[in-house]
């Protein structure tokens, strides 16, 4: 038999030994010992061992690595405690993550508890994206919440508390101080989301008597039954410069818990308000049975009787109206809030009662979403070399398509106007695509979006391209940060309660946008941005048959979207030209996104190759190694476009029949 270099002949009886981590430890007198083809450093096994006495590879007399299964070296033959030479609480094999025995960039020194003087290794920024204790929180979040990064102390736990509002309202305490996450606090460090079956609910965090966060979930707006609940913490984050998605992990999840809700009626956020002109639509879905008779008793918040409405249904839905009159049919109710008590009786004579609170919209402008309202476009970039390319891309592919182009003789008006951007002359005239270069530019954008200039027609449509996150937009380059947060926008638009109130997503009080597309990372992980712009979570064809003027949509991304690197932006421009040309051609939003998501769009867009940049999951897919390199979680590494509102909205109206668009998911 011909042996190749480093191959060894083993005795028929293999003398493996057993120790805490397994039963394949090697005796030192066996041929594979010190018989490998390379050094321990090359093999990355400095802090591993094959020996019962737990001597590390790097501490053996020879640098040659042993052949055989290697285990993490522990403090002794009977110990499962990995060696921690400097006693800083982080095992040596973790500190020297490439296992070469040296302290390299991106590692902490396994022989020094403070690799950077004065900073204990567990809080070193090296571990900002690493969960050292396995409690679901990376170092960045452990530090933000003042937790021990070496202790399993995840505070994102849900404990149900009794408030007297049960069973309609289920309230959970999360042991995190409101002062850290209250939406109305300027120095808040992040936010909490309550996830129901993996989907973020619009649930506000409010302080209990001890200043700890309480999440009150109005279960009457969710289908009854078994639900898995989990709390999610999202850290505020300023976005770093660069063409790639921002890598830091800013989300932490708590352990799941379950709750079975027993509401018979499910209310709809779309029908939670009324106004003097249109009255109210009283809506509820009956889950127990399609057939029912009902009475709806209307009362003031103080319980004073107003009116009773009766009826029956065989579709499982109650959908009737109230003209705001009292029982006499003429006297008008003028209060700002009303309680509707739904009493239903099923065919088997079982009866149920459930209360819905409706509020009045004072400003009717909220209902009025002009289709030809102004459009604002803005973008940020952080590489000066890219600015020119991106400028041309946004100008030509977006702004000129929306606003039109002009030359010395005539201007061609393309439907929209803008109080923020200006068109160009076929690229020769620079126009203004809305570059945000400074904080002052961002402030001007906010002023524009909030329609604070009383002498300008209101802006009701907005497109943004650039760095973004779950709750802010912009870029940080050196000390020159350009950003604003969703809650700042919500406050300026008067949507704070719609975005963060106890009935978030239900009682709209401020300005509403018709179309918003935040084309940046993580802008649709939860409804915060959509609510900040006054957009409902979901609008259906039937709701539009009742209120056609309320058609609107918000588009964002559910993860870290890809963007082209430095250089020409032809690929990107092609994608945006297709998207906005489809929009300008009157196609529904669902179809515009679909066309711009294809590598090779079919007819009528089959002339263009979008394989180098598009919105589709195939292009946007991050490989596992690429995700790992950038510290991305799987959740953030599968970016998809998501629509809130209605997917069948068009430039000048809407089309029914888009109630199951894939972009709602």
């Amino acid at each position, binding site marked *: 038999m011909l042996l190749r270099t480093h191959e060894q002949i083993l005795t028929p009886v293999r003398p493996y030994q057993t120790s805490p981590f397994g039963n394949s430890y090697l005796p030192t007198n066996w041929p594979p010992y010190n018989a490998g083809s390379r050094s321990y450093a090359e093999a990355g096994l400095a802090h591993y061992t094959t020996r019962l006495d737990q001597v590390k590879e790097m501490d053996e007399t020879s640098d040659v690595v042993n052949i055989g299964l290697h285990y993490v070296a522990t403090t002794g033959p009977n110990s499962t405690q990995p060696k921690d030479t400097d006693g800083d609480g982080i095992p040596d094999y973790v500190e020297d993550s490439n296992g070469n025995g040296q302290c390299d960039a991106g590692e902490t020194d396994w022989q020094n508890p403070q690799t950077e003087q004065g900073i204990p290794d567990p809080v070193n920024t090296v571990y900002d994206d690493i969960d050292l204790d396995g409690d679901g929180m990376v170092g960045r979040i452990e530090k933000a919440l003042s937790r021990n990064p070496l202790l399993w102390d995840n505070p994102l736990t849900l404990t149900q508390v009794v408030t007297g509002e049960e069973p309609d309202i289920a309230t959970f305490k999360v042991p995190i101080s409101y002062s850290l996450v209250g939406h109305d606090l300027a120095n808040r460090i992040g936010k909490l989301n309550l996830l129901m079956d993996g989907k973020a609910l619009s649930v506000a965090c409010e302080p209990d008597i001890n200043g700890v966060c309480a999440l009150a979930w109005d279960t009457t707006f969710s289908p009854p039954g078994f639900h898995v609940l989990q709390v999610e913490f999202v850290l505020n984050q300023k976005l770093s410069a660069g063409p790639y998605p921002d890598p830091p992990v800013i989300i932490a999840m708590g352990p799941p818990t379950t709750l079975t809700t027993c509401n018979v009626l499910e209310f709809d956020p779309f029908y939670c308000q009324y106004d003097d002109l*249109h009255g109210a*639509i009283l*809506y509820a879905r009956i889950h127990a049975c399609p057939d029912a008779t009902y009475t709806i008793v209307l009362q003031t918040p103080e319980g004073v009787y107003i009116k009773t409405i009766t*009826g029956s249904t065989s579709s499982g*839905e*109650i*959908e*009737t*109206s109230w003209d705001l009159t009292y029982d006499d049919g003429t006297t008008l109710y003028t209060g700002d809030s009303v309680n509707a008590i739904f009493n239903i009786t099923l065919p088997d004579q079982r009866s149920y009662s459930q209360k819905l609170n409706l509020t009045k919209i004072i400003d009717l402008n909220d209902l*009025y979403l002009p*289709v*030809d309202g102004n459009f604002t476009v803005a973008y940020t970039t952080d590489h000066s070399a890219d600015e020119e390319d991106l400028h041309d891309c946004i100008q*030509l592919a977006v702004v000129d*398509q929306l606003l*039109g*182009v002009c*030359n*010395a*003789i005539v201007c*061609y*008006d393309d*439907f929209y106007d803008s109080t923020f951007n*200006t068109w160009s002359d*076929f*690229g*020769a*005239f*620079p*126009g203004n695509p809305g570059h945000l270069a400074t904080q002052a530019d961002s402030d001007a954008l906010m002023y524009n979006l909030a329609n604070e200039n009383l002498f300008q027609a209101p802006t009701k449509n907005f497109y943004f391209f650039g760095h973004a996150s779950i709750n802010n937009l912009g870029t940080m380059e050196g000390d020159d940060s350009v950003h604003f947060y969703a809650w700042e926008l919500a406050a300026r638009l008067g949507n704070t309660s719609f975005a963060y109130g106890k009935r978030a997503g239900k009682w709209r009080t401020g300005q509403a946008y018709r179309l918003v597309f935040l084309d940046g990372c993580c802008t649709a992980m939860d409804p915060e941005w959509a609510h900040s712009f006054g957009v409902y979570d979901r609008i259906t*064809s*039937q709701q539009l*048959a*009742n209120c*056609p*003027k309320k058609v609107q949509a918000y588009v964002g991304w559910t993860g870290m979207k890809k963007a082209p690197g430095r250089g020409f932006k032809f690929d990107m421009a092609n994608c945006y*030209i297709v998207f906005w*040309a*489809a929009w*300008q*051609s*009157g196609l529904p939003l*669902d*179809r515009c996104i679909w066309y711009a998501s294809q590598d090779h769009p079919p*007819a*009528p*867009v089959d*002339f*263009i190759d979008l394989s180098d940049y598009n919105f589709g999951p195939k292009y946007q897919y991050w490989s596992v190694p690429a995700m790992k390199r950038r510290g991305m979680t799987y959740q953030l590494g599968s970016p998809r476009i998501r629509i809130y509102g209605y997917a*069948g909205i*068009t430039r*000048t*109206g*809407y*089309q*029914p*029949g*888009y*109630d*199951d*668009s894939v972009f709602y998911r």
Partner: protein
Amino acid sequence: MFTTKAYREEALRLIIEEANCVARELNLPESLPITETNLLEVYITPPRIAQGMRALGNITTSNYTYYISVDNKFSFLVRRNLEQEYSNLRAHCLWPMSRMDTNAAYQIATQLLAAASMDVNALNRDCKVQIQAFTPEGRAGKHFVPVYWVYWVAPSQEGRGITASIEFVLPTRTILQMHVKDSKYILRKPLEIANLDFLLSPTNSAPVPNAPANP
């Protein structure tokens, strides 16, 4: 995004011509003929995109937006100031539910589509028809507005889009919105730009602006 003045003028001429035909065929409340001076907004798809998408552009008068968006054929029509229209209708045209007549709505919808040279027979053959009325008081309310959506859905596409749709005011037959997304159901002739190369030649390109550039 390259275009020329000559191209835009020719595209616009064709679209206006087609809009006049449509307005006549559908008896739309327009002052005919529609001319360039009547237009409030014009979107001419950039030539390269227009050639590929076969969506020449659209024009808006004070009454309607006319879209040439599918295979260079007239394909969509949308009433201008829709929101205002809905408000007016709701204020002045509230009918008791007992007057809801989806059969009449279907008949008128097919007549209007046929008048615009849409292939209603093929739509009925290939798709399912759905009808929805404007019910501002909810489906169980006492009143409705005689505005109907009649739409055709391909069986495999239910919930994910429609093939054709029309929304109109029944008593006046005023069209609010009309969309036909598939060229095979549009029996109209496509608009074709002749002498495309000539129209896009540099001598016909846009003049250099004499206005100062924005910063």
